[in-house]
């Protein structure tokens, strides 16, 4: 669905700037996310999405209107809205007898659906039900994935990547130690139940430099059940994970380091000209003036020929 190159020129300068801002960039900012209501969202799903929206807040949008659509059957609405809002992550809440309290989380690549995973919220305790201090908005949380199932199941593997994408926020170079306040833990059991918990970190004295960690649950606390999943093909995923050339680290050739950390370099020498090699001078090998003259003449001729060849090649 991506725009390759517009044929029509933008009429205003502002329009031009908007289009430019939508063009792909080598380094992307944080992914924006979008929360949409599906057909008949239950009170629970609405609250749940709102809680996730609160966790994601500076780069998220919450659309409260109901939309009569089924993402697994026709995802064009999501693609359209994601294009409009420049969002790459989305969450849809719906409720039906067959699939009660349904949450669909997913992401897009190039304004087309990449992954879409359906989760059923079995048990849910909202953030507001925990009466304690919450964390600051916009903090980068620590993510903890518990359980061996995360690496065994293909769906869960992708869900892990999706959750990381959803909550890990922007890539940062450095982080304030006191700013490590929030942990989100995802625990997967063998029965494909995912426990979503969120805690506030309390740094306690330990008598050492490294503090002792204590946790306090701040919510939301959700028990998810894995339902349907529509995962993008491996080719598409690989294409999406491609690192642009601008960021790719440039490897310097012929430089290596050995086990002790000392720098080693490999040098390529040209072919040695033995004819011109200076050997030991002897009186008997010295050239006579006549020979010298001939040699100079020969060299001159060679040079001329080379120049002619060069001009011919240039023409």
């Amino acid at each position, binding site marked *: 669905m*991506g725009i*390759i*190159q517009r*044929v029509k020129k933008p009429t205003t300068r502002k329009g031009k700037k908007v289009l430019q801002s939508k*063009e*792909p*960039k*080598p380094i992307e900012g944080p*992914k924006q996310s979008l929360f949409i209501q599906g057909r008949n969202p239950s009170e629970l799903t609405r609250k749940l999405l709102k809680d996730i929206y609160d966790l994601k807040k500076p780069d998220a949008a919450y659309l409260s209107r109901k939309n009569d659509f089924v993402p697994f059957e026709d995802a064009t609405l999501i693609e359209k809205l994601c294009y409009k809002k420049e969002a*790459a992550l989305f969450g849809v809440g719906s409720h039906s007898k067959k699939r009660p309290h349904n949450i669909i989380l997913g*992401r*897009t*690549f*190039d304004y087309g659906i*990449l992954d879409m995973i359906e989760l059923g919220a079995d048990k849910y305790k909202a953030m507001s039900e925990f009466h304690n201090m919450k964390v600051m908005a916009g903090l*980068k949380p*620590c*993510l*903890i*994935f*518990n*359980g*061996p199932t*995360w*690496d065994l199941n293909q769906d869960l593997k992708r869900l892990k*990547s999706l959750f*990381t*994408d959803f909550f*890990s926020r922007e*890539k940062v170079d*450095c*982080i*304030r*130690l006191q700013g*490590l306040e929030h*942990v989100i*833990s995802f*625990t997967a*059991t063998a029965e494909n139940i995912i*426990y979503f*918990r969120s805690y506030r*970190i309390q740094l*306690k004295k*330990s*008598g050492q*430099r*490294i*503090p*002792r*960690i*204590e*946790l306090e*649950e701040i919510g939301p*606390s959700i028990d998810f059940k894995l339902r349907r999943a529509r995962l993008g093909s491996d080719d598409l*995923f690989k294409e*999406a*994970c*491609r*690192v*642009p050339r601008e960021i790719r680290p440039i490897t310097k050739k012929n430089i290596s380091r050995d086990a002790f950390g000392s720098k080693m370099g490999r040098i390529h020498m040209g072919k040695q000209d033995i004819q011109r090699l200076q050997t030991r001078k002897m009186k008997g090998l010295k050239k006579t003036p006549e020979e010298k003259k001939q040699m100079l003449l020969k060299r001159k001729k060679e040079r001329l020929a080379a120049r002619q060849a060069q001009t011919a090649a240039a023409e």
Partner: protein
Amino acid sequence: MDIVNEILEKEQKKAEKYKPITVEKHLELELDIGTLLASDTNDLDTKALQANKDDYLQALTRDNTQLLLNKIWELPTERVDEAIVVRLPEPKTVLPRAKPCPKPKALTKWQEFAKAKGITKKKKDKVQWDEQLQKWVPLYGFKKAAAEKEKNWLIEVPQNLDPMTDMFEKKASEKSEKVAKNELQRLKNIARARKVKIPRVGLPVTSDKASATQLDTAATVAKASTASLGKFQDKLPKEKEARGKGIHELIPGKERKRKLPIPTPQQERENNLNMLDNILNKRPKIDMDKAVAKHINDEQVHRSEEKKNTKPMKGKRNFKTKPKGNNPTNFSAKKPKAGKGQRNPGKKAGGRKRR
């Protein structure tokens, strides 16, 4: 010795006062400090999980967080604006991008040409000094048109033109043509970048005069397109047919064919023999679909004729002439009855199970 023991005891007491920061794990955690992510692949304690879910999860997460933060606290610290910060390593987990990697923009035809010739863009001032108006006039954009109007309030009609021509109108049309040409070139550049085939534009649009070759080409092409059933318009005296690159492509049905070189006797003989072989070895082509359809049609006609000629038998049948029971092409008028056939308990009947 007493002093040493005392100090050791004190230290131990101090350590006992605080809870430990070490965590024992069967399998080590996979840490990605760049994204602040830890994954614990140790088996979960299902009993504890069922008995007291929330407490177990909190304890498990606490342990793993402790391990993650221990690693973070070990990183070298810096001081930025009275806050202690830690430089994080590059994240290990690769997350998909939102949009594909940007591709380098395709060069326009002019840019390609300039690159080949080594022409670089010269920066021009946005305003220029106008001697006539004695003021700075913008090169383009805001207030340019006003300055132009002020400057060219009168345009002389050149001698070679009709004295009644409106020079202002002429100038405006020239400009609009320039704009149109520019737009066409832009579209062509886009088409080239997308590798779309575009139809050739026959004749270049010119405002004033066409060159002799252009007129020649136009006349030749027009003659080809107005020809009817091989009849062309009459030639004018001294008229020449346009020649040159690209003209033949403009005229439908007139593509240049390269003449083959004259074959040697040996080659000619071989060619002729090949041709003869080709003709002799030809087999009639069979259209399988048609043949099958014809065969089926024949069969049907034959059958219907037979049906008309032979009267339906009554009563007993002649068993000798009757084909064997399991023949699928047994088109008898009678309805099949149950219980007459042989039973095969091993064979499963297809379809839905009926009860």
